[in-house]
């Protein structure tokens, strides 16, 4: 099977998954969640007002049309307006995404470099004291609640020591740093442990391959073998892990953003939860799923181009 066949087949396979995601969202928000009109209009709404609102929100349409509307929104990105703020949802999410990115991109890069570097170091000293200590420290870092990091970090570094702003956001360049550095550090701490451990396992798995023995037999130093030969081959699972995580990174900022008052995607999501703003939650679910599926397909196809060993089946 050629690479074009594979690409097309892989793309076709995303259709049932997208349909499944939309079916789940439809079931949760349009069927089980029930009629939102009393919630939106208050206790004293008349039946006529409620019917008018239901019509406005498209809830009086047959269920099949409602489902298709969700499915369509996955392609057109037209999610309608927020119930709470009446703004266009896609515009809200766009402005939120830019803010989130200023926070997420530095944290994402730092986490990637640090965790890969630490994993290499641990693999180099595998089984020795340094490796064991690093594993123990990362496990300990992973055992503390995200909320504790945020609350103590904010209290100690921002409130007591005054190194950073306690909360808020300023989009202009030098000022923005005092708002995003502390949240970014917390984001790094939250994900570095599990990433480093995963990469270490991936790297150690590669160490038993024949080419590693050949490289050693050639007289290369262990460090060269690790950083040049092993890392290159371990890069595929590592890169997959990095790319697949991107949607979760954008949403994973929900806690950090709400505590530091940053108006990004996390802040929008939290606001929507507190106001039962279903269209916004629905839109974010659809978008993150579409994003995940696209990234997944893109990495799969990319690897078949890059790595001739991957079997096309």
């Amino acid at each position: 099977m050629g690479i074009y066949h594979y690409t097309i087949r892989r793309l076709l396979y995303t259709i049932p998954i997208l349909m499944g995601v939309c079916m789940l969202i439809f079931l949760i928000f349009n069927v089980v969640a029930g009629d939102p009109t009393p919630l939106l209009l208050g206790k004293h709404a008349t039946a006529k007002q409620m019917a008018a609102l239901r019509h406005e929100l498209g809830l009086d349409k047959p269920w099949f049309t409602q489902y298709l509307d969700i499915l369509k929104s996955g392609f057109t990105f037209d999610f309608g307006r927020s119930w709470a703020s009446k703004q266009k949802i896609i515009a809200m999410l766009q402005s939120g995404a830019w803010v989130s990115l200023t926070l997420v991109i530095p944290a994402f890069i730092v986490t990637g470099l640090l965790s890969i570097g630490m994993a290499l170091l641990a693999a180099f000293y595998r089984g020795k004291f340094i490796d064991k200590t690093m594993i123990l420290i990362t496990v300990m870092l992973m055992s503390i609640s995200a909320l504790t990091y945020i609350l103590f970090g904010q209290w100690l570094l921002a409130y007591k020591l005054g190194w950073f702003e306690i909360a808020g956001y300023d989009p202009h360049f030098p000022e923005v740093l005092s708002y995003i550095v502390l949240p970014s550090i917390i984001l790094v701490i939250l994900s570095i442990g599990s990433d480093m451990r995963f990469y270490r396992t991936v790297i150690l798995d590669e160490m038993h391959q024949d080419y590693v023995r050949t490289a050693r037999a050639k007289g290369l130093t262990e460090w060269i073998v690790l950083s040049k030969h092993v890392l290159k081959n371990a890069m595929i699972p590592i890169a997959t892990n990095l790319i697949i995580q991107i949607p979760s990174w954008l949403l994973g900022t929900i806690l950090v953003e709400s505590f530091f008052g940053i108006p990004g995607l996390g802040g929008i999501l939290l606001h929507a939860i507190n106001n039962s703003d279903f269209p916004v939650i629905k839109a974010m679910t659809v978008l993150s799923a579409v994003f995940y599926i696209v990234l997944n397909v893109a990495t799969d196809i990319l690897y078949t181009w890059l790595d001739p060993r991957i079997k096309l089946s």
Partner: protein
Amino acid sequence: MKNLFTASIWLQPLQRLTKSKLTTIALVIVLAYTLIALLAHWGVVAGDWNTEVGESYETPSRQHWLGTDIFGRSVAAKIIKSTEMAMSIGFVVSLITIVFGVVLGALGGYFGGIVDELVSWICSTLASIPNIMLLIAFTFILGKGILAVYIALGMTNWVDVCRLIRGEVIRHKDREYVQAATAIGASNLSKLYKHILPNVLHIVIIQVSAIFQIAIKSEVILSYLGLGVQNSPSWGVMINDAKVELLSGVWWQITFATLAMFLIVLAFNILSDALRDALDPKLRGK
């Protein structure tokens, strides 16, 4: 003879586990927390967590070791009572995860074809939605409370178990011992549950210890989002309370709740690593 044999399958890993001091300590911590949770459940300890024992926000002292909360209740009693909540969340969520993951994974892996397509489709669909969105969606429709927490966390975690079990069952289903079972006329069900499943059970044990701590940690996030446990103390609620308390210098609730959670999550983390080494022969010696 038979007893000796089956005993050694499970005794050997246990001996290997307890060889390491760290793992033994982790095992003791897990057992201690389980005991505390059971005692709290029966009301032997911390049955009076909801009574006033002193002033509001008393600092830790000889009388109230861990201080008091806003209503003058003992933080120590609340932490003990919360252990019950945390352990029950870990236990029930693991149970839901295992039932769904093992049954669906085994069916998909064993029967293949349309059944497998269906199972894989459900898994891919759930995996496409970030966990935090799924949690929010599930708790939204289930309402607030402990039952919603159980189901939401169970539903978001079973996919990994399902995929692992499915993969292992596929690797096992054409092996000689299964063919031998076919030759003596074993039915599909008996081949799957009597012959194949015991051979993939180690994955379940490793996964349980991982999911247990994920569930305990997720409870904190749900509490913060206002979707967590109601009317009962939990470490998540106590940590969440600190967002107003810390600024006025009340550090004891968050510190001791974090510490209580840290110990059990750390123990499960260490245990799941050790279990993986002890039960998964492929990794042995690495």
